[in-house]
């Protein structure tokens, strides 16, 4: 997959989200915890009068969770919105065609950029997984 992607750092790893699914990038803001939700759920926040569920992208991807990240990527897929906490937004740019092998069902492909491996997140699968976790 190519096209413009938002590249983020999660712990020591790099991931990319298709820009057409990203609504905005901001601070994580004030979260209200939702005890009882899945482990990856950090809570809900007020995003201009709407409730936005916020997930720790590291936990969703199955990575060890360090300290709670500070940046928030708000994404949307089929009318469903969610915020993803990441450590850093590194770039918004065209991504070359993915050509590296991936073994996570949440990734559609991976690309090598300046000898760093960047996983391209499959937004459909990401939201489907979250919905299944919540079912």
């Amino acid at each position, binding site marked *: 997959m190519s096209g413009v992607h938002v590249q983020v750092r999660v712990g020591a790893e790099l991931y990319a989200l298709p820009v057409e699914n990203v609504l905005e990038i901001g601070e994580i803001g004030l979260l*209200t915890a*939702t005890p009882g*939700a899945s482990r990856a*759920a950090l809570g809900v926040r007020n995003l201009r009068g709407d*409730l936005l*569920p916020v*997930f720790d992208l590291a936990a969703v991807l199955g990575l060890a969770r360090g300290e709670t990240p500070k940046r928030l990527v708000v994404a949307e897929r089929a009318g*469903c919105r969610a915020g993803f906490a990441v450590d850093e937004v590194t770039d918004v740019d065209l991504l070359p065609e993915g050509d590296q092998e991936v073994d996570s069902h949440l990734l559609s492909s991976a690309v090598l950029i300046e000898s760093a491996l960047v996983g391209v997140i499959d937004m459909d699968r990401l939201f489907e997984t979250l*919905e299944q976790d919540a079912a």
Partner: protein
Amino acid sequence: MSQPEAEFLGIFRDEANERLDSMSATLLAIEEGRGAADAIDSLFRDAHTIKGGAGMLGLEAIAGLAHSVEDVLAEARTHAGLAPELVDPLLRATDALRQLANDEPADPEAIAGLIVELGGEPPAETPPSGDLEAPEPQPAVDSQPLRLVSERAAAADIEAPVVERRAADAASASVRGRTVRVPAEKLDVLLDLVGETVLHRQRLGHMVASGDPAQRELLADELDVGDRLLGALQDAAIQTRTLPFGSITGPFPRAIRDIANTEGKEVDLIVEGTETELDRVILEGLSEPLVHMLRNAVAHGIELPGERLDAGKPTRARVVLGAEQRGGLVAVTVADDGRGVSAELIAQAAREGSLVEILARPGFSTHAGDVSGLAGRGVGLDVVKLHVESFGGSMQIDSEPGTGTCITLLLPLTLALLDVLLVERGCHVVGVPLASVQEAVAVSETLSLTGHAALELRGTSIPFGDLADLLGAEAPPLPARPPAIIVAASGRRVALACDRLIGESEVVVKDLGPLLRSVSGYLGAAILGDGRVALLLDPANATAMRPQNRRSQTVEETPEAVADGVAATLLVVEDSFMVRELQRSILEAAGYHVETAKNGVEALEHLTVHGGIDLVVTDVDMPEMDGLTLTEAIRASTEWGSLPIIVVTSRESADDRRRGVEAGADAYMVKDSFDQHALLETVARMVGR
């Protein structure tokens, strides 16, 4: 079908339903011999109007049947009377007309037969049953009263209990067409307020543009005006969402009559509070549960006329259906004067919590010919209860054997807004629907049985828990004497301790959405005035759990109970069972032998008969002999005159303390400051001396 046609269809349907309600009420009145003088005229007008409207819209099946009805009534009008045997076919005709108007499946042959019965010509060609081709199928809500909540309505209402304005509107639309009929007066109020708001906006604009500092004060006043206008606008807009209770009660007398006839019983239905306004979505979903409750009342609650005579009751039973506003809620009640539930069931309810819990337990039903005497209520009440709770309401059942049963549904006035009490625990702000909050208390001590904490409130114990535990959230320890709210739902109560009560607030309920579906126990969340998000507690869920007594029961450091290898024996004198057992468990956990007595008399008896007591811990206020008298009696005794005595009391005045000391107590502890460490330390000091 074109849009305007669909709109007319909606208007026709609403009007036809209204007129049919009025017709069946009038027919029933005629049957009971209390028809008004102009009853037949009014029936004729209703039938005529339905026929005319149906004819204009080309709804031939409706027009044809209405025509036959009209003919019968015209005949009755000229002969100044309606033959009694015609009432029943006319009632069936109104049912059939209602089915056709609401586009429900109707049997064309039965309708043709009905027309013949009414003396009309059968239609040449039987028209297809679904005469109305509405753009969407309409779920049957009103006219299949004997089935519980229709599947579609149930799915819409129960799966999406909450209640954003949009969701509520959608649900409303799915119940009946897209048109909403609002009385003109309500719209006038709304328009007046909009006009005022426009003027307010112009004044604000003028003040800001002038830049005159003197305007600043006026500006503040103008903002107050804005607040008032917004509040009034909100109320007026909500008013357009409400309908009087009477708008759904029309078919009920008819339904009761049929059920009573089938059961061979004589029943009068009295409908009260028809003018009480309720949210139209709640109201529309209420119709079937109410018919179900009425049916239960007649079928299971009311006795046969013979039985009633034997019991010394009038043969005609009364079922009262009422609605009244109670604060921010509406109470809808179904009360009968039938046999009530059995005494065994009442006793079981007292043991297990409440009648609601037993009767609305899924699957609870009273079997036909039940010999255990359980007959009373319950068939399908679980569904009614779920339905009511999905609106943030609650259900309550009162019954007395032989006298009758009363079921109360407490419903919110509107779905869009919810009155909540906001409380704080740790970093969490939680909203609890005000409807379910009975009171707030300061907690000075808790009791414990089998590891579950409880709170004593005016003689009853209520399960007690930390709100943080209920939420499963991390929070620092509770403050001393924390506030607790008593939450009631599903016939249970729970006391939830928190850090602080913030206050009441009216909030817009928002759904947590599909990604947080697994978060159970909440009605949703609300955005507060300061931008924070508060979770809204589902009271039914809160009261269903038994909070574990996580914090207060761990004895971290136990002062040495056994000084020289022999455990001391203590006598605990306390009239409250819960407090007595709490003290026993604390003292036994610390290694003491504990004996107990319920009052001073018992304590003295124990000392006389058994002896061997090393220390007495006594309450002050007790029946028969209080703690101070007991203390004096012990001090006056030659045998145990020097026995150490600890007085534990809820009295905290200096005067009481002085009286305690004068009576001869060695230590005096106030329950408010009562904690197990202090008690154990004091005991250890006294027996170890």
